[in-house]
């Protein structure tokens, strides 16, 4: 097996750096290696120009102003800074956070840490079975202590797109700050912080064909101006919100990645979604007992999350060795618990163990999709022939009625 034969369908996990992005980064490793905070020589100025260009590129992608972009190490840091920063800054006003069971761990564990330290309390909204937040549940969770609503734009496992504009409107109406984790959505689908009333937005570079280790946090500057308590003390970089010497090459890469994503979004989303649909149709034509996890309409173009009933996810991945996908099966994690996202949707553990996430991206081709469909169909058939559950189901036994001891 050579590297050339590998197929990468795990683009929610990370993406390949676009060659154009790498090209934009290179000068800042080699010739223009100045510190963007050096204000007294050409090396510093050119680094600063690179950083400010990237700031404009990132801002343009989400309809923000350049000064509203704060550079971070990635979306996890952005989530931490947004949530902890708001809670600490607005502690006189309140201490309650509303978020959702299907959020990324960077949000959930940050809320838990704040609760543990006695700094905040939080309410977790259970999504509907299609993965989307019920706006009535959101409204009902608001208290006079609520200072922050954090709802991701698109989910990393099931790709569902939350109604962020509606959520933003509710937050605005109640004078609550609205944070959204945009790690999976920015650059893939339109994001407009004005139209959506988003006050804080986490951005990641490596999900949009940029480098790992860099991200951004959009922080609304007016109507209303959002303030944050810095989580990293030091030289007062990034308007005092995030100290630390700027990673100029990485930031230049993130900026270029944003510019490319914005320019090519419409065409790319249509192409990627067509590949997703091609894969979905091929699988459903050849296999029975498949279940799509999450709403199919309100969904990222490149996401397909399917439970292949009676076939455990890790064993299927093992059969697809040259294909990179991911699974909600417990066996792929250290925790021995299947995906908490699928659990929140009400997907039973039995089906959660059989789920596979396909993440299609910019560099995937129709030929690759055809190879993947063929291999998945072949392996699922083989493993079902080996599965006692498939045999029982075919004999007409209701697996739910079996006493498994």
């Amino acid at each position, binding site marked *: 097996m050579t590297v050339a034969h590998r197929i990468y369908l795990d683009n929610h996990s990370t993406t390949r750096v676009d060659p154009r992005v790498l090209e934009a980064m290179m000068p800042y490793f080699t010739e223009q290696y100045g510190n963007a905070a050096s204000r007294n020589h050409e090396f510093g100025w050119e680094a600063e120009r690179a950083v400010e260009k990237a700031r404009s590129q990132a801002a343009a992608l989400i309809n923000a102003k350049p000064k509203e972009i704060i550079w971070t190490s990635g979306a996890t840091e952005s989530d931490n800074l947004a949530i902890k920063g708001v809670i600490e800054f607005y502690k006189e006003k309140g201490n309650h956070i509303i978020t959702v069971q299907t959020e990324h761990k960077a949000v959930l564990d940050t809320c838990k840490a704040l609760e543990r330290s006695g700094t905040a309390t939080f309410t977790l909204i259970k999504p509907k079975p299609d993965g989307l937040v019920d706006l009535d549940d959101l409204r009902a969770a608001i208290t006079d202590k609520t200072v922050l609503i954090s709802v991701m734009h698109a989910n990393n496992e099931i790709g569902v797109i939350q109604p962020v504009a509606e959520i933003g409107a509710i937050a605005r109406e109640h004078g609550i700050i609205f944070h959204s984790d945009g790690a999976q959505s920015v650059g893939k689908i339109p994001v407009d912080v004005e139209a959506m009333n988003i006050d804080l937005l986490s951005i990641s570079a490596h999900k949009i064909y940029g480098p790992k280790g860099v991200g951004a946090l959009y922080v609304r500057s007016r109507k209303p101006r959002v303030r944050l308590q810095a989580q990293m003390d030091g030289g007062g970089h990034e308007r005092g919100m995030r100290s630390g010497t700027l990673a100029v090459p990485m930031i230049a890469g993130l900026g270029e990645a944003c510019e490319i994503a914005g320019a090519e979004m419409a065409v790319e989303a249509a192409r990627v979604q067509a590949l997703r649909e091609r894969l979905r149709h091929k699988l459903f034509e050849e296999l029975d007992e498949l279940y799509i996890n999450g709403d199919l309409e309100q969904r990222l173009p490149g996401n397909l999350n399917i439970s292949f009933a009676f076939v455990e996810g890790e064993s299927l991945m093992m059969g697809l060795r040259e294909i990179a996908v991911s699974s909600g099966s417990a066996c792929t994690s250290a925790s021995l618990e*299947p995906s908490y996202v699928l659990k929140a949707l009400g997907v039973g553990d*039995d089906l959660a163990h059989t789920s596979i996430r396909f993440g299609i991206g910019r560099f995937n081709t129709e030929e690759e999709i055809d190879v993947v469909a063929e291999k998945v169909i072949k392996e699922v058939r083989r493993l079902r022939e080996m*599965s006692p*559950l498939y045999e029982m189901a075919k004999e007409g036994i209701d697996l739910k009625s079996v006493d498994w001891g």
Partner: protein
Amino acid sequence: MAYSDKVIDHYENPRNVGSFEKEEEGVGTGVVGAPECGDVMKLQLKITPKGVVEDARFKTFGCGSAIASSSYITELVKGKSVDEVRGISNTEIVEELSLPPVKIHCSVLAEDAIKAAISDWEAKNGGDKDAS
């Protein structure tokens, strides 16, 4: 996680996949695990009237290590007496397949499947434990 060569071999070329008729004479069936836990093994042993395992079949829903563990035990039990088979411990499976710590439960499940299959056979054969 990297799999050992033996796990990959059993996964790609599983031995003795299939089913015997449950009611066939001399067949003991053990089904262990649960779909919610991500592992279900069905092991069937065909045992002679003299108490020797002459054949075995398995079907497994589970990860590659679970499939490999059950495939391996179908080879391991053949030709052994019921008492010998009853004495098989999960550590033999762990060692043979070089299972990492997080996969030890697969070997435990395989051991449980053997014991469940023997119990079923004994129940059908009127608890004839002396046969050996």
